């Protein structure tokens, strides 16, 4: 088995790619699916948390508290192993999508809420006296200002999300981290770890550059807002 040691890094990784690729697919699929589901969810939840009826706000507080306050692994395990006791049996993928989306959206809801409440009261009053309704105020004035303040912390959340996809192993899904682990244990060489490390870091850079780009686009049309 150690004979493989003579194989160079690249040759070795290419050899292992057919196995590794399944894990990589799982990680990316989960990542993008969660972004897609959680993004609109967190915008809605944040708006509702700021301006919804009292009961809705209380419910949403409970939600963000529970999901931000408990470990993601525990949430996954509780749903995957616990729900069957309630007669609810979900496939691992369903559990992963639901729990990851709710968990990510819980953090992002708070991030967006912070952005919304950072817009001064005077902006709402200006809209109000100009006759703008709630949706016009949100769409034309509040969201455009909030979004720029929300981008940097959202970037961090997205990077964390990609890394956290590795937690799906707790419900018997094989992501790229777990796949690499298998390969390393089997072959007793760590090249697969190096490969996934590179992918995680690359993904982080990519995320950062996408968000920097967004910030630049917004700042081009929207100057810095010292003193309105």
């Amino acid at each position, binding site marked *: 088995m150690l004979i493989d040691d003579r194989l160079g890094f690249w040759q070795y990784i290419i050899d292992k790619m057919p196995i590794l690729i399944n894990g990589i697919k799982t990680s990316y699929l989960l990542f993008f699916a969660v972004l897609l589901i959680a993004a609109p969810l967190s915008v809605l939840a944040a708006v509702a948390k700021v301006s919804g009826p009292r009961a809705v706000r209380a419910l949403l507080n409970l939600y963000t508290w529970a999901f931000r306050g408990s470990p993601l692994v525990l949430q996954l395990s509780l749903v995957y192993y616990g729900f069957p006791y309630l007669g609810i049996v979900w496939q691992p993928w369903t559990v992963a999508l639901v729990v990851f989306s709710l968990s990510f959206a819980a953090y992002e809801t708070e991030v967006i809420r912070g952005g919304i409440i950072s817009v001064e009261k005077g902006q709402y*009053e200006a809209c109000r*006296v*100009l*006759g703008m309704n709630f949706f016009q105020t949100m769409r034309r004035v509040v969201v455009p200002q909030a979004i720029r303040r929300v981008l940097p912390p959202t970037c961090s959340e997205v990077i964390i999300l990609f890394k956290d996809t590795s937690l799906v192993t707790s419900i018997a899904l094989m992501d790229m981290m777990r796949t690499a682990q298998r390969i390393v244990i089997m072959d007793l060489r760590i090249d697969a770890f190096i490969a996934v490390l590179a992918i995680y870091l690359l993904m982080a850079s990519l995320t950062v550059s996408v968000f920097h780009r967004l910030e630049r686009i917004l700042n081009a049309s*929207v*100057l810095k*807002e010292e*003193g*309105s």
Partner: protein
Amino acid sequence: MGEKTQVGAGARTGDGARADGGAQAGGGARDDTAEVIIRLTNLHKSFGELSVLQGVDLTVERGQVVSIIGPSGSGKSTVLRCVNGLEKIDRGVVEIEGVVVAAVGTPGAKPAPKEQIRAVLAKTGMVFQSFNLFPHMTALQNVIEAPMTVKKIPKARARELGMEKLRRVGLDDKADAFPSRLSGGQKQRVAIARALAMEPDFMLFDEPTSALDPELVGEVLDVIKSLAREHMSMMIVSHEMGFTREVSDRVIFVDNQKIVADNPPERFFNSPEHPRVAAFLDKMLN
């Protein structure tokens, strides 16, 4: 209202009354038929335990400029904010152009249908002490935002309208500047243009120059004076006594949760009846 003079016979049209300026002598008394544009009746407002207004009665006629002065924290801003619904009243009636926009705890008075209230509030312009311009929009965009989104005026027409209003406040050359690039006085003039772009029937000014460096106060007051010359109905909270005296048809003094005085400026400043007013003026003018 300060004057209760009745004109026996031959009531004239509202327009005629204004032409006489402040003259109150003999038959020149203000006309009964002058249209009341704002009427506050028995207004009460408190914030939690703190009672701010207790039984405020006030009317503003079309074309009038009414100034509100008084000590800090006496409730001047609150009066304005109750007029256009930024604050909910606890008791009393608020009428704008004959439409009851708020009525609480007053038998016989009921708020008008929502649509009607919205329509009449849309004709109410307000200018804030802190400008409250939209920082992510240029001066022109600030001005045309509400005409476009609220009145659905097409962009090209809105831009024309916006440029006209900016010219009106002397800032057409700053149309493409963002608020962060404007001086305080320029910001406030853009804010006035923004309010004017909605073609308001009357304007509320809450200390429009209090956030400005002294050398920038004049340019904003000049714009307001020009509005007064065009007979825009206005309620103005201001600490600029010279300006108040020059521009107002009536000056109102608010203190201790009530209106203490309501007089034409000459009377208000030259022979204040109320000791509180006298003391206040003494402090302000010296």
